[in-house]
């Protein structure tokens, strides 16, 4: 039995998917699942893991990828939590603003959009339209009312963002504006509201399977039915998400990826991590997914692997420290022992003449799984390559470093045409397959083009422009 807060009140929950708990046990039907795999954003809720702090933090996450058992002492806020702020409930200024902008058509996904927008208003950095659109891009809409959503973001930037930017504490300001309820700051600490628990038939039928240990679950629950399987989610580490120590950059493998990115930005370290994080997944998924989980899942298209391969990262587990190059042993296989947890990733601090690139090509440009991805690490002096490191994902059973090619590139002028060289090295270095995301020949060509694109980025700006297609 898990103790948590739901819309300001303490309650208890059996272990089950949060979305099912909300809809079937608590009759909170405003939270709706459309995809049940974290892709559509329809079932987003606001979640806090420190609800009793003086200033609790809330983030939007997809409730289909969460189990109640992982929410001990957490606070869950659903759309129903916003229904008592105004009378009638529809008079909430945010709902009015969205309706006026034409941001809701069939309405099935609308509560999820509201949650995503509130998440942005609470946690966004610049609060401009570009950021707003990026933060709500995890909310798919099949009526494709995206223009209405864009208009809504614009209106929020004009009307609300100025006061929020100046606010020392956004949650407090939004509570004062009656956009969010006061109990988000002060949840009721009285007795639990356990309404509905006694009627639950499903609780006894949960199979008792051995639990896997997982990160945020954003990959795991795609492959396992959360109504059937069991897994114990690692609580995110309470330590900081990233830090610099002794010429090493430490990335917390158990922190949500978004936190790692934010901390790196504050530390002014590893600038490529910002665009990498953006490409990795939608905001609600980034709020849960961890580097440790992404590595341990060891997918051939895992975005973090090529990046960490070219950074020559060290992997510090609960038992030992090993090189990233020793971690992967085959398709979705790692050298991790049972119970061994990835804790930290250690990256040597970059030399000043270093540049690191990451690119990902997917069918949909954003929030999609890669067909292929590439990372590269370059040191260039006097227009010649001093050191090159290149890794390609999605083109082999596991992402690979292209050591032979790296050697070839050493000392080459950056203006060289490397097309033939890259193509010949790739002949043997990669071994792509065909699947629903792309054919083997496409992946092979794409691997070459990604490397050429990175190579082109080394050129002076005016010479990057031309392609002999």
């Amino acid at each position, binding site marked *: 039995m898990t103790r948590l807060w739901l819309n300001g009140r303490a309650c208890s929950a059996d272990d089950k998917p949060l979305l099912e708990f909300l809809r079937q046990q608590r009759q909170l039907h405003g939270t709706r699942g459309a995809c049940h795999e974290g892709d559509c954003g329809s079932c987003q809720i606001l979640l806090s893991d420190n609800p009793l702090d003086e200033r609790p933090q809330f983030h939007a996450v997809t409730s289909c990828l969460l189990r109640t058992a992982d929410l001990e002492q957490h606070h869950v806020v659903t759309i129903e939590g916003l229904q008592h702020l105004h009378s009638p409930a529809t008079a909430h200024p945010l709902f009015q603003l969205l309706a006026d902008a034409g941001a809701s058509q069939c309405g099935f996904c609308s509560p999820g959009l509201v949650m995503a927008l509130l998440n942005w208003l609470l946690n966004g950095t610049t609060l401009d339209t570009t950021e707003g659109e990026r933060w709500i891009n995890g909310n798919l809409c099949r009526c494709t009312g*995206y223009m209405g959503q864009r208009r809504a973001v614009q209106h929020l930037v004009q009307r609300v963002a100025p006061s929020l930017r100046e606010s020392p504490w956004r949650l407090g300001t939004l509570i004062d504006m009656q956009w969010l309820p006061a109990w988000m700051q002060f949840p009721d600490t009285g007795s639990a509201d356990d309404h509905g628990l006694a009627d639950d038939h499903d609780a006894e039928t949960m199979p008792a399977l051995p639990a896997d240990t997982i990160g945020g679950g954003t990959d795991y629950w795609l492959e396992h039915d959360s109504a059937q399987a069991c897994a114990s989610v690692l609580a995110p580490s309470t330590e900081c998400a990233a830090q610099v120590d002794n010429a090493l950059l430490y990335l917390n493998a158990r922190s949500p990826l978004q936190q790692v990115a934010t901390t790196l930005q504050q530390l002014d370290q590893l600038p490529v991590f910002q665009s990498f994080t953006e490409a990795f997944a939608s905001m609600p998924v980034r709020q849960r997914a961890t580097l440790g989980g992404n590595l341990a899942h060891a997918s051939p298209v895992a975005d973090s692997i090529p990046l960490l391969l070219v950074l020559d990262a060290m992997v510090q587990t609960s038992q030992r420290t090993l090189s990233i190059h020793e971690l992967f042993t085959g398709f979705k296989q790692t050298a991790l022992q049972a119970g061994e947890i990835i804790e930290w990733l250690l990256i040597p601090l970059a030399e000043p003449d270093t540049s690191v690139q990451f690119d990902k090509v997917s069918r949909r440009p954003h929030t999609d799984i890669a067909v292929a991805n590439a990372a590269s690490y370059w040191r260039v002096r006097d227009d010649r390559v001093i050191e090159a490191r290149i890794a390609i994902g999605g083109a082999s059973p596991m992402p690979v470093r292209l050591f032979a090619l790296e050697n070839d590139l050493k000392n080459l002028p950056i203006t060289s045409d490397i097309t033939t060289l890259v193509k010949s090295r790739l002949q043997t270095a990669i071994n792509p397959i065909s699947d629903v995301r792309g054919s083997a020949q496409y992946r092979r060509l794409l691997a070459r083009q990604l490397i050429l694109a990175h190579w082109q980025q080394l050129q002076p700006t005016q010479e990057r422009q031309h392609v002999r297609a």
Partner: protein
Amino acid sequence: MSVRESELHLAGLSQYVDDLPVPEHCLFAAVVTSPVANGILHHINADAARALAGVTVITAADIPGRNQVGDILPDERLLADYQLNFLGKPLALVLADSQQIARQAAQQITLDIEAQEPILDVLNAYQRNNTFGDERQFRKGDTASAFAAAACIVEGTVDTPAQEHLYFETQATLAIPLDGNRLKLYSASQNPGSIQKLSAQVLQLDMNQIEVEVPRLGGAFGGKEEQAKTWAVLAALGAHLTQRPVKLVLNRQEDMRWTGKRHPYHAKYRLAADNDGNLLAYDVQFLQDGGAVADLSTAILERTLFHATNAYGIPSVDVKAVSCRTHHPSNTAFRGFGAPQAIFTLECALDHLSQTLQIPRWQLQQRNLLQPGYRFDYGMTVTTAALQECWDRLWQHRNLAHRFAAVAQHNQHAPRFRKGLAITPLCFGIAFTATHLNQASVNVNIYQDGSIGIACSAVEMGQGVSEKMRAIVARCFELPLEHIRVDYTNSSKTPNMSATAASVGSDLSGMAALQACTTIKQRLLEFAAAHWQQDVALLRWDNAKCLLADGSIIDWHTLITTAYLQRISLAEHAYYATPDLYFDRTREQGYPFAYHVFGVSAIDVTVDCLLGTYTVDQVDVVYDLGQSLDNNVDRGQMEGGLVQGIGYSTLEEIRWDEQGHVLTDRFATYKIPDLLSAPRMRVDFIASASNPHGPFSAKAIGEPPFLLGLGVYFAPGRGHAQFQSGSTAGYQLPLTPERVLLGLYPDALV
């Protein structure tokens, strides 16, 4: 007080079928379906499932009436009893006290099946003569002579693919048994009238024993026009046999695997022109993959025939089309209803011609744009210049001449990121092509307190029909919108409903509502004249008040209260049938459409010629909407339809394995556009002329925007990418980044 539908959505207060309170003793359903695309079912062994506590298993043998749910053709059993014709064909219904137990029980059922080789390819089906009816042919002029004399002829093939509806709300029904052998069904359906009829047929009940209600739909796009029926009738069957409520909701994978898609088409075209690019003759054959049963395929095929020449004037035309039977789940209605495949095919032929003649596509389009007086092959004549008006306005207001020049200049030095721009003109006929479906009824009920309820034949599915109905009634009585509410669509309130489809929902129900309001208003005025002893000719209606000749004012509330006390009917049931429609299928001639709508779009793209990825940057549209009833709704339909059409053309792709399993059966593998991949848009509505077939001269907008998005395929342009190799490999949607890259570097892998 009534609020906008969208406000309820945003507040999380809207109820969809799966959100309705679950009645006591409700059973939950799981459906056992065919694991093969083609085969014979010898035996269903359900003993183990039935042994589980509280589990009921229902098969074809339990059906009290006819095991038949085909609508146009009677070729579709509700539950298979012998022949299995697609993967996902239902063959048993499992009911239990919880969803989980029902699914577990369904897994315990074993089947004795003889699998046979499936036909999954439309060409294969056509060669074997597996068709739904004969090939149809629309003709005009003498194509043979025209081709013989033409200076330029292009010919080739076009493949337009399937598309998954991916409505966010999956198929869902809640069936509740009532006394007197009656049933109430809450169904997520565009077509409650059909569900009522088919349920009665399957259960051997009268239609008046079945009430079907649709709260609203979480998206439909055609996917719930015909294909909600299986799940609704199954739930009805379960409730009828067990006399307990039954809830049947498909999960996402079931929905994606078991329900039909947009029809894939294979087309062969020949197009003739003179050296200046004037079109002379068009000869095209469409092979439609209808899937396993007829469903709506023949009706969809008919719209393909009607729209084969889209927005162009062509002197001689020969269009043939036939629907073929394969072993896919039956393909079905999807926004555009057979028109996208037709319109895209002709645009491909024009593209091909443009390369052959070395005349820009837009010049060919402009030169051949249809003009007033043009007679379509099916007999109707174009009566307005609205298309030319849209074209000219787009051209001038959006600087197209300048933009085409700028694109050419930008691309001159072969930069990595190249630009493209493509125009798509559109002509779309408005009406159900099955003439009898063009009817609707509406109840307008004024209550004693002055509030108004509307019951209409149209289902709300995000297309905003309820807002439009409110707007019409509000405008008739000059009342604020908050007095007016639209009820859930219900077969007991508006009998014999046609599906909400063909973009005509707000036209048909709107015209009926207008009629009802006019009748009530006249009745109220006559009552007021008699009651307050005035000459009715001198009464005026102003701002929801009745002004008497002596200057006194009777406000709405007083008028309604007084009329009620004086026993004046405050309700009206009105009926509307679109006048003058007919179509003679023996001659393929007639007057099938109430009117045509017209529009033109311009789509800008940027192609990354290193990686093959591209972005759709900007869409500009001019569309003849007539008078808008709700600008937010119409704008949303235009913007949303465009993005859905762009998604179909660029991104969305269903893949099957050799046995017919859908490989793209989840959001992770079937990709739809997201916000960041949607282009910027500028939408310009014009009102070309009054429209007697739409309430307050409004015009339809549901489907046409989808078609205006198809032109994105042509935007990247051949100048710098060979992926549109129409003359050799054939044209093929969607234009994925894979096709672009392989087209850009065809020799890279040799």
